[in-house]
């Protein structure tokens, strides 16, 4: 389109209004400040501390993280590619319902999934209980690699699923029709035309999952599988000197940054393709006799990722009620969590707006730099952000340390990239000519943005809010490390009960947590903004 071309061949540029610049710059500086401090803290004891920490554990952690990331990535593609193709391109029965069910595991935090995996399959778990009368007195060990693989595979395949769905939707049906008209059948066309076009998206999805696995704390901690995040947490909570935790945090952030760079590269490859055309969807492919095997496959995926965890939680809840167990108080933690998620969502979206507007409308090297700096925090695992803020709070901001304000700062740093991603898409789709028309009719730039751009970007802002709300509800490590003493949250209550193997007590808060997190998710799916979640 004409405006896409124009925005690329800019001559002399009109400067962006300071009302966008200043807040954007301030936000980026605040998000980057703690990391400077984490780096400083990690080098305080000199390089000998690095040598010592890394030689003690780095090889094992690296190998474990790589093994787990690879395994989860393989599972994710094996599940997500057929799932995305079936729900986007075929005449699968109840397509829309399946699309929602396959995305719903996003509402389940990894530690809740991990907890239910242990409860179901672990020693003295439900499965063993059922098998005992049959003479089975030992199940394969669930703690460690296989348990972590199952847990993280179940919670992270929806990310790849969403990326692939978006990519499949932007495939040009005319290319496939050309292949068909040249004598290729549907399967041969899929293999020769569609799959090659999907490769960048698959790569982006894989790297996204690797990034997720590397950053995950709750899942690996529950399954006692030793990766960077778990080692950092142990180092942080057990040793008096926290330099080791800081050093591992820096290493983890570096690894994550590498993955993020790879992911952004792969994504730019398929987005360049997607921008070229957006056409009406092709006619659905008839599954024929493959229809019921396809349904069975999706049903199995949903059973493991959704029915298993929900079933276990309900089972424990019912069992607890029957036994007259003491349930932990949940209303106060729910109120705290919902308040933090809502205020975090509003603040994050408001702070992301100026950066998104700068990048989408004014361009230029500095606006791009701001946007990339804001995106870079995507590479930072929640635990690392929390750690950086703990160090920063103790060192420089004792007034803020252990207040909900600090927690809010952590959420903004962590989820600014998500909000940016969701805001950017509708802004990029909007023709800049709309704002030019407003300017031609006498409106100042900010007035034009307020009367034209923002009302049209409202769906994107709602999607961004829902996404950030959902992610804050589930967030564990920053919530654990930065909540003020005595400030109880749902993830905190679930965590403390699960780590003491009080699954009955964890069931109620976990169910409430998943229920509340599912609300914005269903909203996103319902509005068709699901693809925004992929960022």
């Amino acid at each position, binding site marked *: 389109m004409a405006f896409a071309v124009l925005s690329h*061949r*800019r001559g*002399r540029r009109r400067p962006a209004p300071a009302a966008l610049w200043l807040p954007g710059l301030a936000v980026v500086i605040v998000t980057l400040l703690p990391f400077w401090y984490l780096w400083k803290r990690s080098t305080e004891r000199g390089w000998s501390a690095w040598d010592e920490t890394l030689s003690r554990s780095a090889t094992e952690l690296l190998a474990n993280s790589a093994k787990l990331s690879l395994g989860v990535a393989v599972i994710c593609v094996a599940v997500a590619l057929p799932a995305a193709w079936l729900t986007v391109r075929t005449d699968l029965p109840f397509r829309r319902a399946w699309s929602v069910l396959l995305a719903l595991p996003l509402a389940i935090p990894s530690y809740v999934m991990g907890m239910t995996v242990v409860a179901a399959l672990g020693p003295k778990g439900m499965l063993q209980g059922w098998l005992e009368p049959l003479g089975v007195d030992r199940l394969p060990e669930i703690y460690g690699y296989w348990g972590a693989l199952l847990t993280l595979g179940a919670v992270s395949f929806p990310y790849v699923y969403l990326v692939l769905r978006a990519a499949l939707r932007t495939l040009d049906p005319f290319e496939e029709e050309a292949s068909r008209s040249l004598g290729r059948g549907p399967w041969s066309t899929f293999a020769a035309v569609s799959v090659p076009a999907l490769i960048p998206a698959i790569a982006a999805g894989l790297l996204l999952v690797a990034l997720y696995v590397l950053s995950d704390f709750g899942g690996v901690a529950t399954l006692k599988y030793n990766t960077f995040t778990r080692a950092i947490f142990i180092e942080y909570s057990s040793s008096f000197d926290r330099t080791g935790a800081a050093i591992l945090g820096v290493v983890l952030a570096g690894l994550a940054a590498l993955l993020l760079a790879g992911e952004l590269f792969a994504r730019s490859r398929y987005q360049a393709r997607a921008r070229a055309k957006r056409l009406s969807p092709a006619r659905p492919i008839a599954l024929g006799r493959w229809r019921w095997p396809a349904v069975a496959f999706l049903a199995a995926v949903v059973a493991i990722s959704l029915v298993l965890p929900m079933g276990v939680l309900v089972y424990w809840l019912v069992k607890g009620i029957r036994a007259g167990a003491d349930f932990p108080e949940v209303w106060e933690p729910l109120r705290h969590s919902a308040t933090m998620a809502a205020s975090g969502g509003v603040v994050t979206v408001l702070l992301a707006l100026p950066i998104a507007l700068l990048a989408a409308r004014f361009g230029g090297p500095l606006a791009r730099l701001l946007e990339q700096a804001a995106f870079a925090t995507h590479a930072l695992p929640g635990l690392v952000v929390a750690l950086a803020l703990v160090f920063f709070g103790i060192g420089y901001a004792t007034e803020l340390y252990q207040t909900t304000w600090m927690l809010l700062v952590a959420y903004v740093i962590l989820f600014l990239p998500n909000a940016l991603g969701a805001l950017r898409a509708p802004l990029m789709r909007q*023709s800049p000519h709309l704002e030019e*028309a*407003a*300017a031609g*009719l*006498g409106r100042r730039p900010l007035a*034009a943005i307020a009367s034209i751009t923002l009302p049209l970007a409202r769906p994107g802002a709602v999607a961004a809010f829902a996404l950030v709300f959902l992610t804050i509800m589930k967030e564990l490590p920053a919530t654990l490390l930065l909540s003020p003493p005595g400030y109880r949250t749902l993830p905190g209550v679930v965590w403390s009960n699960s780590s003491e193997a009080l699954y009955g007590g964890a069931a109620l808060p976990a169910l409430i947590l998943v229920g509340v997190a599912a609300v914005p998710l269903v909203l996103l799916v319902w509005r068709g903004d699901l693809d925004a979640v992929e960022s």
Partner: protein
Amino acid sequence: MPSKAESLRVDALEVRFGGVRAVDGASLSVAEGEIVALLGPSGCGKTTLLRTVAGFERAWGGEIRLGGELIESARVSVPPHRRDAGLVFQEYALFPHKTVAANIAYGLPRGGDRSVRVRELLALGGLEGFEDRYPHQLSGGQQQRVAVLRSLAPRPRVLLLDEPFSNLDPGLRVEMRDQVARLLRAEGVSAVLVTHDRTDAMALADRVAVMEAGKILQVGTPAALYFEPVSERVAGLAGEVQFLDGTVEDGTVETALGPLRPLGTPAAGSCRVLVRPEWVIPCMGGGAPARIVSSRMEGQHVRYRIRVRGGAELAMTTASGLPLPPDDEITVRVHVPVPVFPAGS
């Protein structure tokens, strides 16, 4: 040149994108109430010139004055919202979340006779009853009228139209051309219209500026461009062309069609002569002999290929009718003074 006051003046304007000079020293003047068309092939810089007048691109050199006020130069740049220059976009850029009435009212100052002005414009555009519709509920022609009315509403000092008819079907295009012309004349607004379609340009504009490679080649009335182009290039952009070799001698130019009356007083010697297909007409005698090679009825006219003295083939179009068959011997003449260009140009 109209004797009225000057509204817009573009002087030696230069706009660059990277290393490319999109506008390369273009000058143009528009009088009060005058409609000027910028005609040129795509990529010639005409849209860039328009967007620079509107304030969306920056000048590297030269200057633009609106009502005498300097609005753009390498140093000065009045922001778009303070220019009073209305821009109508190629794809209209109607605000999708506002009704027709709200779109038109957008540029009007708050309060007062806002609704009066909106009603007046709706009536002018024949859009009464559509005020509460949203843009996506309108046809292409209606959307375009709303876009023009929206820009006219605040009574801009100049109205800029970027390829306003390129998104319309051919039939609708002719109708919209007349409607837009009527709107602009009714409001008495000065306007610059950018188009690559010479029929749009000539049908709508008082004067046409022919532009190529960032430069304005000629500015004149449609008739002047058509009958008196200053170069072969302008001739080609203003209409269908064919050239004959000729020799100027004693005030006439000798060609394969016999001696023709040249336009102006060209220098003696060999030259190239512009003969548009419909300038050649069959006559009853006293003309040059020609043989019909092929003929084809094309609706509004009949197109012939004819072979003239020396074996050269020419195109000739005549008003529609029963075409003469091939191999007929006829005589033809040229009924207007022919523009003469130096040989080898």
